[in-house]
């Protein structure tokens, strides 16, 4: 107690990076205290290219105004891989982003990074998680060649591995804190296009809705993707969206989830460690989710990050936070993902 009054240098505050699939989600995220919001154009230049989602130029301009008035930054995701026939569309998206005054673009494609760094040297570049940079050497490559300022770590590394990356790169490191969990290395998964012809890399979406079919059958509710049976649900089950890696299949006669049960990532309890190791930003997944989701998750994480900055080692996760997050999680079950590896 005697030391409690001794002034300490304030810990560098973790930035909270929140998803905005729609203008109301952007406003709610900013109102609830997001430091950065990330969003995409209404097309396949970003990895959440879903019908009805995302921003056109007008709503983006309004969104940037709103965020900047309240001190938040806007990051534009251009994190899919352009092909020759569509290259100009991505190139023009970079140009429009620069002209509209976004605070950074989040890019995965090497050619597009080269174009952006050459053409818009003042535009801040973030390396997308789709860029699959899993080591400090891969991240430093992008820093040396394209001057990236921040990199989003793929969700495959343990805390120890993430810590090593942070300590060996001049680039800010952003890690995923909460949301739907990808168990494959981002940018290295073609399961969706194998069944449907469209993947995050090529079309900005995994398991596109046009390829999804739900059907009530005598054996239960069946979900199919591109005609492939992904799962069957009994009445008591909680059906997940038919993403391939969350399906139930048969291996040597055993029917189970060969990849993973539907779960959500939740790293609240790692906050003190992430802060201490010098992680720059925590990313919340979910541009496809509703404003209600964004509101809840932003509020909880804002409170938690602020509490962690004040309390440091004394920081404890509040049960009310976990309860709130559990209520909006897919699959009702949260894990620490790869950060803590019970499966390792």
């Amino acid at each position, binding site marked *: 107690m005697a030391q409690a009054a001794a002034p300490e240098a304030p810990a560098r505050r973790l930035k909270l990076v929140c998803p905005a699939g729609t203008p109301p989600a952007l406003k709610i995220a900013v109102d609830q205290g997001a430091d950065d919001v990330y969003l995409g154009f209404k097309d396949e230049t970003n990895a959440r290219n879903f019908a009805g989602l995302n921003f056109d130029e007008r709503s983006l301009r309004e969104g940037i105004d709103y965020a900047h008035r309240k001190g938040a930054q806007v990051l534009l995701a251009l994190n899919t891989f352009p092909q020759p026939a569509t290259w100009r569309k991505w190139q023009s998206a970079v140009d429009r982003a620069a002209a509209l005054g976004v605070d950074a673009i989040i890019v995965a494609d090497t050619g597009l990074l080269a174009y952006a760094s050459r053409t818009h040297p003042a535009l801040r570049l973030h390396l997308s998680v789709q860029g699959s940079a899993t080591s400090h050497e891969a991240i430093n490559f992008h820093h040396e060649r394209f001057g990236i300022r921040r990199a989003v770590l793929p969700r495959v590394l343990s805390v120890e591995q993430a810590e090593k990356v942070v300590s060996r790169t001049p680039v800010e490191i952003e890690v995923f804190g909460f949301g739907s969990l990808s168990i494959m290395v981002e940018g290295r998964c073609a399961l969706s296009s194998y069944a449907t012809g469209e993947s995050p890399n090529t079309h900005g979406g995994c398991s596109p809705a046009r390829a999804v079919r739900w059907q009530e059958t005598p054996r239960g509710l069946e979900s199919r993707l591109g005609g492939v049976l992904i799962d069957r649900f009994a009445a008591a089950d909680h059906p997940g969206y038919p993403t391939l890696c969350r399906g139930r299949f048969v291996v040597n006669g055993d029917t189970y989830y060969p990849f993973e049960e539907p779960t959500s990532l939740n790293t609240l309890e790692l906050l003190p460690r992430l802060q201490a190791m010098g992680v720059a930003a925590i990313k919340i997944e979910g541009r496809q*989710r509703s404003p209600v989701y964004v509101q809840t998750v932003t509020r909880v994480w804002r409170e938690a990050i602020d509490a962690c900055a004040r309390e440091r080692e004394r920081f404890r996760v509040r049960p009310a936070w976990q309860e709130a997050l559990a209520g909006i999680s897919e699959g009702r079950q949260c894990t620490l993902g790869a950060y803590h590896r019970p499966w390792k």
Partner: protein
Amino acid sequence: MSAPALRRLPRPVGALARRLPRLPASVAFATALNLTLRRRFPAEVLDRLEGHTFAIAVEDAGVELLFAVRGRRFAPAARAAEPLLRFRAVAWDYAALAAREADPDTLFFNRRLVVEGDTEIALLVKNTLDTIDIPRTRGLLRRALRALAPR
């Protein structure tokens, strides 16, 4: 916001609602849609819905509201062919969704909101509704829900 407890209409209300004729309810619903949502739905979204029938089944009321999109307007529909989309939930959950008190995905994961039919159109509708800012209407709904909430 954890998933709220399931709240059903009191049984007498449900029984009463079941006796009401379906078409007038659908007429009233389509009118309400035209008043609150039509102008906020982008034309290209209405065009995607054009000519299709949609069903909103209010399970505890035993009511199914049927409407179609014709000429970029919502119109009541009689029972006809299978609708392109059918939503099933209880009245309370619909109201909570409209008030932005509940998250549609959460209700879906818990099978409180069941969606049958074309998934892409369902996502389009969900995402479009998410883009619509009608704070006054949502605020009113929210207050009504709080007032009605069983203690």
